[in-house]
């Protein structure tokens, strides 16, 4: 006990009394899948974050780094949580010169907040991960989630140019830089992006921006399974510059996507083609898309298009605590068969970023857990056949315990563990949520 109180005293001496929460009520709000943290610390600077990690490392307190907590459902059920390091106080823009098309912001800034600032200059961060825009930049980088737009704009690994990361030895290190091209030294950005808080705490990010498109539109069509496959093949061979290409099955349309301007019939698939650019380019692509689809298409633009875009993103995000969401990644040419397989399961919804091979799916409410687990394994082996993988992104703890969240085994786990040990020798970071051993 005295060991713990010394540890807490150390943490408090770093962030101050106000920003170290230990009261039962306060910490219970940070309960995660049955684990209640001992304390919650809110660093006010990268240096404070590093000092917290160093103290935690020396005191053998496990650390869970969080932003807005919008993606805490990801990962294996955590082991005991010592201290939650909450990045909410680090929410400033550090540097933004619009003409550079880059921005540097602190990790606790929300995606929506950033979009608002850069939007005023006619720019955007081209990331649209599932879930609310209150998710933080640090969280998006740590989870490396991406949405429909990744087809044209890439994923966090492509858009992060530089980071400042707090490490468990108490140092704050810079990785990368501020320019799009930079090959000075190793690409440590890539190591931290997607590492789910297992190596350090991302405190600051320099991100590549894109100009806001002049216009946005979405072309939709409800197709029979065979039509959908033909259209997908034709799209792959076309020179349309799609921003996104999604497919949803009937269940997803009815359960999650709300009113659509196409008629959803039993067993149909709805395809959504996202277009960005100036008026003429959109008009021409729409024309060609209609020819490709050769059936009834609907087109929406402006806010209406944005609305459907948003609903597609939200569909892939757990609708409730512990709602089951599975994400499979497969080669693009296998999206069709994967989507069909899932749709053949009674009541399952599926939404795919078809242009990128990302398939989100979930069971009907009230389905039996072992039944769901069986389907997960089926989907996983289907994905693995093509060199892909399937992750149980969200679900009840019992399901996550029974069926490995990240897959049966991880290739090169030994190398990854050595990397982990180099940055986190005490093994305190991440609380066991990432792939086993990291």
């Amino acid at each position, binding site marked *: 006990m005295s060991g713990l109180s010394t540890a807490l005293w150390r943490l408090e001496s770093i962030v101050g009394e106000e920003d170290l929460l230990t009261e039962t009520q306060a910490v219970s709000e940070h309960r995660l899948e049955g684990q209640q943290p001992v304390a919650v610390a809110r660093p006010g600077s990268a240096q404070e974050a590093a000092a917290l990690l160093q103290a935690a490392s020396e005191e053998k307190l496990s650390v869970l780094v969080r932003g807005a907590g919008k993606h805490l459902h990801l990962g294996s059920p955590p082991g005991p949580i010592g201290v939650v390091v909450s990045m909410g106080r680090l929410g400033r823009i550090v540097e933004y010169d619009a*003409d550079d098309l880059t921005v540097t912001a602190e990790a606790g800034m929300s995606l929506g907040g950033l979009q608002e600032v850069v939007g005023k200059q006619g720019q955007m961060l081209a990331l649209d991960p599932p879930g609310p825009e209150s998710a933080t930049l640090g969280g998006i980088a740590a989870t490396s989630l991406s949405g429909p737009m990744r087809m044209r704009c890439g994923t966090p690994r492509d858009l992060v140019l530089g980071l400042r990361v707090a490490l468990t030895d108490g140092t704050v290190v*810079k990785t990368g830089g501020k320019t*799009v091209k930079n090959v*000075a030294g190793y690409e*440590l950005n890539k190591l931290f992006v997607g590492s789910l808080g297992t190596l350090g705490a991302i405190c600051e990010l320099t991100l590549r921006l894109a100009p806001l498109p002049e216009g946005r539109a979405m072309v939709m069509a409800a197709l029979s399974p065979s039509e959908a496959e033909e259209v997908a093949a034709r799209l792959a061979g076309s020179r349309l510059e799609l921003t996104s290409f999604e497919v949803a099955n009937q269940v997803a349309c009815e359960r999650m996507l709300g009113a659509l301007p196409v008629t959803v019939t039993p067993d149909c698939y709805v395809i959504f083609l996202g277009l960005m650019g100036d008026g*003429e380019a959109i008009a021409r*692509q729409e024309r060609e898309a209609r020819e490709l689809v050769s059936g009834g298409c609907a087109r929406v633009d402006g806010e209406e298009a944005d609305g459907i875009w948003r609903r597609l993103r939200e569909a892939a995000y757990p609708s409730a605590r512990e709602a089951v969401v599975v994400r499979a990644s497969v*080669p*693009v040419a296998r999206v069709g068969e994967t989507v069909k397989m899932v749709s053949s399961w009674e009541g399952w919804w599926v939404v795919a970023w078809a242009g990128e091979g990302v398939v989100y799916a979930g069971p009907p409410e009230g389905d039996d857990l072992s039944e769901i687990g069986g389907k997960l394994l089926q989907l996983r082996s289907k994905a693995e056949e093509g060199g892909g993988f399937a992750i149980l992104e969200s679900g009840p703890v019992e399901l996550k315990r029974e069926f490995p969240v990240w897959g049966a085994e991880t290739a090169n786990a030994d190398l990854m563990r050595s990397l982990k040990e180099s940055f986190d020798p005490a093994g305190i970071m991440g609380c066991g949520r990432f792939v086993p051993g990291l």
Partner: protein
Amino acid sequence: MVDKKVVKALARVVGRQNVLTEPADLLLYSYDSSTARGMPGAVVLPASTEEVSGVVKVCARHRIPFVARGAGTNLSGGSAPIRGGVVIALARMNRVLEIDVENQRAVVEPGVVNLDLQNVLAPDGLQFCPDPASQKVSTLGGNVAENAGGPHCLKYGVTANHVLGLTVVLPSGEVRRFGSKVEGTPGYDLVGLFVGSEGTFGIATEMVLRLRPLPESAQIVVAFFDSLEAAGEAVSRIIAARMVPAALEIMDRATIEAVEASFPSGLPTDVEAVLLIELDGLKEALDRQAERCAAICRELKARSVEIGRTSEEQERLWNARRSAFGATARISPEMLVNDATVPRTRLPEVLRQIQEVERKSGLRIAKIFHAGDGNLHSNIMFDRDDPEGLHRAESAAAEIFRIAAGVGGTITGEHGVGAEKPGFMRLIYSPEDIEAQRKVREVFDPQGLANPGKVLPERETAGAKEEGAAE
């Protein structure tokens, strides 16, 4: 020289005819396109992943350093065996193993030349986006090791954005597969970490690359300016006008003169700068964008602006750009190249400062840059017969690195750190930042045999400190 026993062991792996030990042969592999030099003890030419693994195992067992080599076009000394040892030349591993049109992926061996792949892909309407100026000769293995850039990075990103999977021979000789055709494998991003590691994490023997459809059409706008700064300003305004051209390239007067002297392309030699703007994408969008770019250049008093040339003319202009490096080398047999990169908005002031360096050093510096990325190539010409020549050129280069670091830029945008720039890493990274990088290297190569002496500065050496930290 490596031991006879080692030569025998290498010969058992690749056959005696694929192990070179004659001094005349070794000399050919002692340098690359930089100023770095080092005599290898042996050169081996493996033909498969298994052979590379076998060769590396021999090196690991005997604790001999090894350096992988493609076409040797490296501009920072990355492929020069500065510590001797074994050069592993990958030229024989030049097969395109698979073009997966449906999934837009290619699987290639490291010795495939970048342009050869593009030519294989074009009939299917596909491309591999990274297009370094050296693409006619440089190999994809080298492109991956260096995280190569090229003029079209502005719109399409660097090599790291287009590599999804690797077969790697680790410095222990063990063969591993990182990633696959599908992006985002659970766990740490070993592919992303490996790309750009300059041969210090091992040797990639197979690579899965992302392909993209060729753009439907392209259009070039060329503007001639009486001042370099005006050309730089045009770039800023084009970006501010929400356009992302495929490429924005500037050549200064010294470069234009060099090009016209060696490969006449019809460029006027009495202007201070030429700005080459390439727009690509859907036909409908291009005409209007080209008009807008041209209008911006005219506002900035460009002497002349031309748009809508034929594809032959476009090709001629691009060839002028791609030949600039060779052309400059023809004028000045010795040249020190660097590619400091700065935030785009700082280009005008950086250009002024580089002109100042030119004036003070008395050396001619040909400037050619991927202006959209803030990536500057300052080709510093010197005379090797002048005993002070190289030294003066190096001092000028050091000054340019300091200028770039001072405005938040980096010491290399695409050429790599190699043997020439480890000392300058301290200009942009703290000792802690460098230690973090060293930890990663030690995970991959605990024995320190893979391309030693490259990328990171030595711990605590006085020499490196002098070079980098003296300000």
